């Protein structure tokens, strides 16, 4: 894909109003882009911080703008909110919006994100059943918690566990149903799953693994219980569905832009955020991309990934050197644990525990041939920061030193 860069004067249209889109428009101006920049967001709110929606949605301020609304005007960025792109005309280089507007572009950036994966069972449309992606979702969830509704959480991933932690911290009943044999099955090591499961159970979260919901039942249009595949049922007053997200790649698919392999999906991009159409880039949760430590293009839904791709797209548009491959990382807050994870957790690694999980401060290093490929840490920022650095540099470490929490961390690098 050797195409000349669109350049600093190009007209850039960004479809999407999430973290990736907001990061990109800011970066373009920082890096000297002078042409027109238009951001089209289908939500009515200006781009906002999403992580607090599942972490601090009860006590904290929900509306945390990534930039104050007046920022965009000052930076000469046109923001169109409450409008959705409906079709791309690649030959004419225009994108049609549901409002009837047609926007022409030199570069189109698809940052449409992901949508919550629906729960494909009868009753999923009952009142009191929801997912968590947007500010509106978070407002509804906050209300349920404030009303003390018994909360059933379908899916023991990060969002489900974060919400369970908030609910329990407020004394609200929370039951987590996980289809797999452990929580965080897709994203964490078995060791971390076990620790987090214990941490939740100790604080009153009920976790049921290998439990699949087959139906939701209600009264007067409101959900009242979930029926499980074993036949028994769980009573509840509200259901949060947290079973993953699907890339919003329909616009690209309809326009004939290449998407990721079956099962992964997402708009296929290279390390410069370029799609199969040289005038179209894609960034953020909607993409399927090369990721260090992962075989083949993959989808990675996280803030750092969105930021990284915003940098890649900026470099591509302005013809600057692409950023060096990053070490993926992720964070989650549950109860008093600040989890930080770097690298990609995969089976078949040597796992070294440093610190005592019971103390609330520990790190799990996952090594391949003596080199860390992932680190999962809780309240252990030095271990996280050092581990992230070692993963990126391919540093060999001494597992015995690593294991000894009294030994200096620096001494573990060989």
């Amino acid at each position, binding site marked *: 894909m050797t195409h000349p860069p669109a350049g600093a004067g190009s007209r850039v249209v960004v479809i999407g109003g999430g973290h990736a889109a907001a990061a990109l428009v800011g970066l373009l*101006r920082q890096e000297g882009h002078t042409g027109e920049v238009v951001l089209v967001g289908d939500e009515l709110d200006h781009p906002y911080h999403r992580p*607090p929606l599942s972490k601090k949605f009860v006590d904290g301020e929900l509306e945390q703008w990534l930039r104050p609304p007046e920022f965009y005007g000052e930076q000469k960025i046109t923001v169109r909110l409450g409008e959705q792109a409906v079709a791309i005309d690649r030959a004419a280089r225009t994108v049609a919006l549901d409002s009837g507007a047609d926007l022409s572009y030199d570069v189109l950036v698809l940052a449409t994100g992901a949508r919550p994966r629906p729960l494909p069972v009868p009753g999923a449309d009952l009142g009191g059943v929801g997912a968590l992606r947007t500010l509106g979702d978070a407002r509804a969830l906050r209300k349920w918690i404030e009303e003390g509704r018994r909360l059933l959480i379908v899916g023991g991933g990060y969002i489900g566990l974060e919400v369970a932690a908030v609910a329990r911290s407020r004394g609200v009943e929370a039951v987590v149903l996980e289809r797999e044999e452990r929580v965080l099955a897709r994203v964490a090591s078995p060791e971390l799953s076990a620790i987090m499961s214990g941490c939740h159970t100790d604080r009153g979260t009920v976790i049921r693994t290998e439990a699949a919901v087959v139906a939701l039942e209600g009264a007067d249009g409101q959900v009242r219980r979930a029926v499980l595949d074993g036949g028994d049922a769980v009573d509840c007053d509200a259901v949060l569905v947290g079973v993953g997200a699907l890339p919003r790649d329909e616009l690209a698919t309809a326009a004939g832009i290449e998407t990721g392999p079956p099962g992964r999906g997402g708009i296929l991009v290279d390390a410069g955020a370029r799609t199969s159409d040289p005038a179209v880039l894609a960034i953020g949760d909607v993409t399927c991309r090369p990721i260090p430590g992962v075989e083949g293009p993959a989808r990675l839904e996280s803030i750092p990934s969105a930021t990284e791709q915003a940098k890649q797209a900026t470099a591509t548009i302005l013809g600057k050197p692409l950023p060096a491959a*990053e070490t993926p990382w992720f*964070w989650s807050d549950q109860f008093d644990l600040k989890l930080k994870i770097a690298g990609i957790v995969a089976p078949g690694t040597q796992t070294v525990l440093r610190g005592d999980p019971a103390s609330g401060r520990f790190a799990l290093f996952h090594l391949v041939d003596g080199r860390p490929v992932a680190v999962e840490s809780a309240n252990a920022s030095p271990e996280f*920061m050092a581990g992230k650095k070692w993963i990126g540099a391919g540093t060999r470490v001494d597992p015995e030193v690593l294991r000894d929490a009294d030994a200096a961390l620096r001494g573990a690098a060989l």
Partner: protein
Amino acid sequence: MPKVTYVVPDGSVHDVEVPAGQSVMDGSVRNNLPGIVAECGGSCSCATCHVYLDEEFAGLFDEATDEERDLLEFAEGADARSRLSCQLIVRDGCDGVRISVPDTNG
């Protein structure tokens, strides 16, 4: 309003008025200055808002918490002047503070 001077990675110097009560990170993000990435939005989670604060200004801000020190210990290029700018809350006495921003914030 206190004026904070940012020396950003390309060496250019930006004087920015930052309202008391906001952080040095806020002032940078608000004005779209390069160098401070601030991925976590100021919750002391990510260390992508690392800056250098000269000793002469250090007393104008609260001391770093253990959490901040922990994040900085292994941050790229960290030294005795290192701070996380999300934790540097500007007050009226901070007028004239000078901050250097490294190019290693990811």
